[in-house]
């Protein structure tokens, strides 16, 4: 067996330097990452990157910052396994490997003038955070902006500083609910689906963006369809396991399509007949 050294392989990583970290809950940590020379990641909201820690592994992570933020980008990592555990022990100055961005993000170029309805369940706020901040940074380009957030418990809420700001802003309608809470919680208790009927919207000009645990999609989509939002204007980001990001390794395959190439964002009309999708 002969070995050829390569410079331009698809598996080449860029060195991402961690500029800042922030513990946001017991499980989740935010990382601000700078690429060599301060190069922009140049992603679309909803795209993902493959993050490596050499010797531990590589996995896909949604970019949580908006492309309007230049010079660095952010990831939120939930500690659920070997790699995420190792990443969450990193501190400012440490390096991670970055490949990407990959996949199809949210179709920001067609949203001008539309009303935006965000429906986030739990950690689903992370990929949506990118598009929400994109919308806030270009607020004039959009109609009504509504954000619905559902979490397990109040202490599971991510980006709490920003949630307070969203609550105060007049140009954003923000509502949240939790599945369970102690008596100190003054907000809504119940599933995220309970927030949808109360939203006032004009269906034909509304785009809904839904990200959450797989179990959430069927129920949320049903409520959005009751509101008569067209199927092609309901956009969903699907979570799948991915090993390459290049449409080859097969792990992210849903029926005939590769989620890493054709997704992770799909409009509902594209996946409603795809049997393994939601």
């Amino acid at each position, binding site marked *: 067996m002969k070995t*050829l050294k390569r410079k331009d392989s698809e598996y080449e990583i860029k060195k991402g330097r961690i500029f800042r970290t922030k513990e946001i809950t017991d499980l989740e940590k935010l990382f601000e990452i700078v690429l060599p020379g301060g190069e922009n990641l140049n992603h679309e909201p909803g795209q993902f990157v493959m993050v490596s820690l050499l010797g531990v592994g590589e996995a896909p992570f949604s970019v949580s910052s908006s492309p309007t933020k230049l010079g660095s980008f952010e990831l939120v990592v939930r500690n659920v396994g070997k790699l995420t555990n190792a990443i969450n022990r990193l501190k400012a100055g440490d390096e991670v490997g970055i490949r990407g961005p990959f996949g199809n993000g949210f179709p920001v170029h067609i949203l001008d003038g539309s009303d935006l309805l965000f429906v986030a369940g739990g950690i689903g706020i992370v990929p949506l955070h990118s598009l929400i901040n994109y919308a806030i940074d270009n607020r004039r380009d959009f109609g009504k902006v509504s954000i619905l957030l559902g979490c397990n418990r109040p202490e599971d809420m991510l980006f709490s500083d920003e949630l307070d700001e969203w609550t105060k802003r007049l140009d954003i309608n923000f509502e949240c609910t939790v599945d369970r809470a102690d008596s100190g919680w003054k907000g809504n208790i119940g599933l995220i689906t309970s927030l949808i009927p109360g939203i006032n919207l004009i269906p034909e000009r509304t785009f809904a963006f839904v990200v959450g645990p797989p179990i959430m999609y069927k129920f949320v989509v049903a409520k959005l369809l009751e509101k008569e939002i067209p199927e092609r204007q309901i956009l969903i980001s699907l979570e799948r396991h991915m090993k390459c990001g290049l449409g080859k390794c097969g792990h992210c395959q849903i*029926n005939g399509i590769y989620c890493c190439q054709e997704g992770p964002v799909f409009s509902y009309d594209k996946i409603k007949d795809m049997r393994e999708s939601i």
Partner: protein
Amino acid sequence: MVVLTNPPEERLVFMEQYVVLKKRDFNDFIAAVTREQKVFAPVAKGHNQYAFEEVTSGNQIAIDYIPTILPPKKYFMPQYETIATYDTFNGQNMESVMEYEDMVLFGVHTCDLAGIQCLNIVFSQQPKDTNYLMRKNKILIIGYECNSYCDEYASCRLVYNHLPNGGYDLFFTNLENGSFIIHINTLIGEELVKKIKIFKEADDSDLQTLEDLRERKRKIFAKNEVPIEHEKIPELFDKVYDSKIWNELDKRCVACGNCTNVCPTCYCFDVIDEPNLDLKTGRRYRRWDSCQNEEFAKVAGGESFRSERGARQRHRYYRKFSYSIEKFSRFFCTGCGRCSRTCMAGIDLKETLTKLVEEQDMKNPDAGYRG
């Protein structure tokens, strides 16, 4: 619109593309090739099992073999392939690598040539897999024709792989008269033939013998092994997603992953880091993976999207007969029969397809060879 692979029609034969090798000169031919290059060929392993291995003489080659345990995929997409080495003593330092071997692969059956073509298609689709594409061009392929069925598991007629459809540099056919006739398909093949001055030019009677042999083959492979027309298979799969046949497979499958390992067109893989003892340096490698393992499609939250074995078997069949048609306009089943031959639970591809056909009542017992 689905475009299907055309059936192999009679081809125009140009005499200068053919040479003849006496069977008694075969060992000298292999010896001459091994002086130029490493040669890999089918070798008998006992119990009617064969494997592609490096050979140093023609005597080692099992010229009449049934499909090898592993297909020649293992040379194009190695079971373990280092894609990078790394050093984290001072940050995330990685160097990508491509592993390859210059080789002559002798004796590849038409089903396995089709399998290599499928892999070529997958890995040349954007974003390309450049390691694969560089490696495949280091391998000179010599095909070898089956003059009749290898065994009852093969279904090469169903997917039109019983006759050669290209994908080789040279192609040997045993004329059964003491000679091989060799089709020269590429310049690389031609150069090898010219270097080894052991061949004679084919004459009219050699070509006639080849034509007669192909005619006999058309009779042997007259009927599809499964009672359905080639063109109707995608339509069948449009109808059977909810078939109870998958539930039957669910009860039998033991999720061992043998079927995907031995499949010449299964290309799914895992990417794994392997540290050295210093825990700072190591390698990142790809390893064959299988959609038949439940872990394969699990996400971080523990959710599994194909938790049932029947759903995973269905996924495998759809990748061979349906998704690949939508994506690449060809079947990803080569008809080699390896999945059925190796299955510990006796899941048989021909039997599964036949049951699906019968269930949908799409039987066409008259389906015969049209060419």
